[in-house]
């Protein structure tokens, strides 16, 4: 009977490790998803709070980051679904709160952000997970809870749309 009671990880330590060690990476991931610096902050915070307010003990810091990323993607997709009206007008708005960049970098950034905004939330999540996080298709499917075929279809459609958007942006 001496081994019946459970020792659970200290969530404060896991959270602190996650914020200090992975906060910036999560923020960059969120920034690509929503295209806005302030929203990215909100998204990361909301995901972290949800992850840790659930009765959850995360055994490994690496797994914790992956778990928060999954929550973040799901929050983003759910939020986009609820706020479809907002996302229809979002491409009209410039991202705020970003430090000034060289002109060409601004143009490049705006082009890729605008192109990303033209994708559906699920397509955008697939693109970010596949080409930014560099996850294989199978893992992207696992994180989104969909089949590999669905991910491939989203990626294919996203690539076609991105190609069109980016070439239009470059040609003026």
């Amino acid at each position, binding site marked *: 009977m001496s081994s019946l009671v459970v020792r659970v990880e200290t969530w404060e330590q896991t959270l602190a490790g996650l914020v200090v060690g992975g906060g910036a990476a999560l923020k960059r991931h969120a920034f690509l998803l929503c295209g806005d610096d302030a929203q990215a902050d909100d998204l990361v915070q909301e995901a972290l709070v949800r992850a840790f307010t659930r009765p959850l003990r995360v055994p490994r810091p690496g797994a914790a980051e992956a778990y928060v990323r999954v929550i973040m993607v799901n929050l983003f997709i759910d939020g986009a679904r609820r706020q479809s009206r907002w996302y229809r007008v979002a491409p009209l708005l410039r991202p705020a709160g970003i430090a000034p960049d060289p002109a060409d970098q601004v143009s490049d950034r705006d082009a890729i952000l605008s192109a990303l905004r033209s994708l559906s939330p699920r397509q955008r999540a697939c693109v970010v997970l596949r080409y*930014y996080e560099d996850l294989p298709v199978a893992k992207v499917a696992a994180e989104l*809870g969909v089949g590999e075929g669905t991910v491939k279809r989203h990626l294919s459609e996203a690539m076609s749309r991105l190609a069109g958007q980016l070439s239009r942006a470059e040609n003026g």
Partner: protein
Amino acid sequence: MSADELELRSRLTQTAALAGPPRFTTDDLAGRVRRIRRRRRRARTIGATSVAAAVACAIAIPLTVGSSGQHVMSMAPAVGPRLSYTVTVNGQARATPARTGALPLFTVTPAERLTMAVKVTVPRGRAMTVWLGITNGMLAPRRSGPVGMKPILASTRTPLRPGAHRFVLHWRVPAGLKPGASFQLSVEWAWSEGAAEGNVAEFAVPAPAAAASPAAVAHRLRELALRAVTSCDGARPAWIHAVRTTFGKVMAIPDVAEGINAADRPADPVYLVLMKGLFVFHQSGRVPPGFCEHGPSGHYFSAVFDAATFVTLEAGLGNHPLPVALRTLGSALNLGRSARG
């Protein structure tokens, strides 16, 4: 420009690098998590998310009243000004001292019609837009209105002025609720600079009288534990044990009690349930492929249930046992196979 994969990868990396540094701190987040955990500690039940999808009819009658001598319970919002409340449900006024942060807990029955009178006191110098409604404890304050509140039982079209405002809410508890299910009456409020949320009261469906027999309790606890997690390897748990003890004794166990407010009724009877296997928490009943390898998993599941309502007070996964014997906490129950080793 062609958007081939390599180029896209490179441009995504460049764009992501333009994101500003995180504007949140560990302390802020940990504080927020602690507040939410504290508020939810008496109301969280596994599978309670379906409660929010309630069949509800609600009429909200906001009336402005003067201050009265009723007990006022203060809630601590995440940020900004505080609201204070008085709650009466079906004629029963319940209040808990604000210093403990505990919510008034009402036991309800499925299909029961509730009439709730809530007095909201808006502090001086602020005008507040207020929403009141039913949630499962997961709240995300937004100035544009609440997310996760379903149904919304009352909302103010124009901001409330400072002072006391009374709302009378009518709601029918969903008929299909199982014993142990719980939900909360929550409030969100927004002012010119921000928004915050809080819980006003908690409702739980108690276990039926027949469930008081040891066999029924054991069955109920086993069901709750098995529903809380999914086995990664598909195998049944090596063992499931439980002990009837008190809040105070559970709080004395290091780590297991984290998230439980130490000031909250240490003499209350609870069940501590322990299960060994390889588990993950799952949210929707289906574990995505690969989740066990990369998601948070653990070999030991622990949960603390309120002995009267079977509401889940705390649950967790871990990989290390503690050197505390169950029998030292109270009378132990064997809910599954015999313990190995």
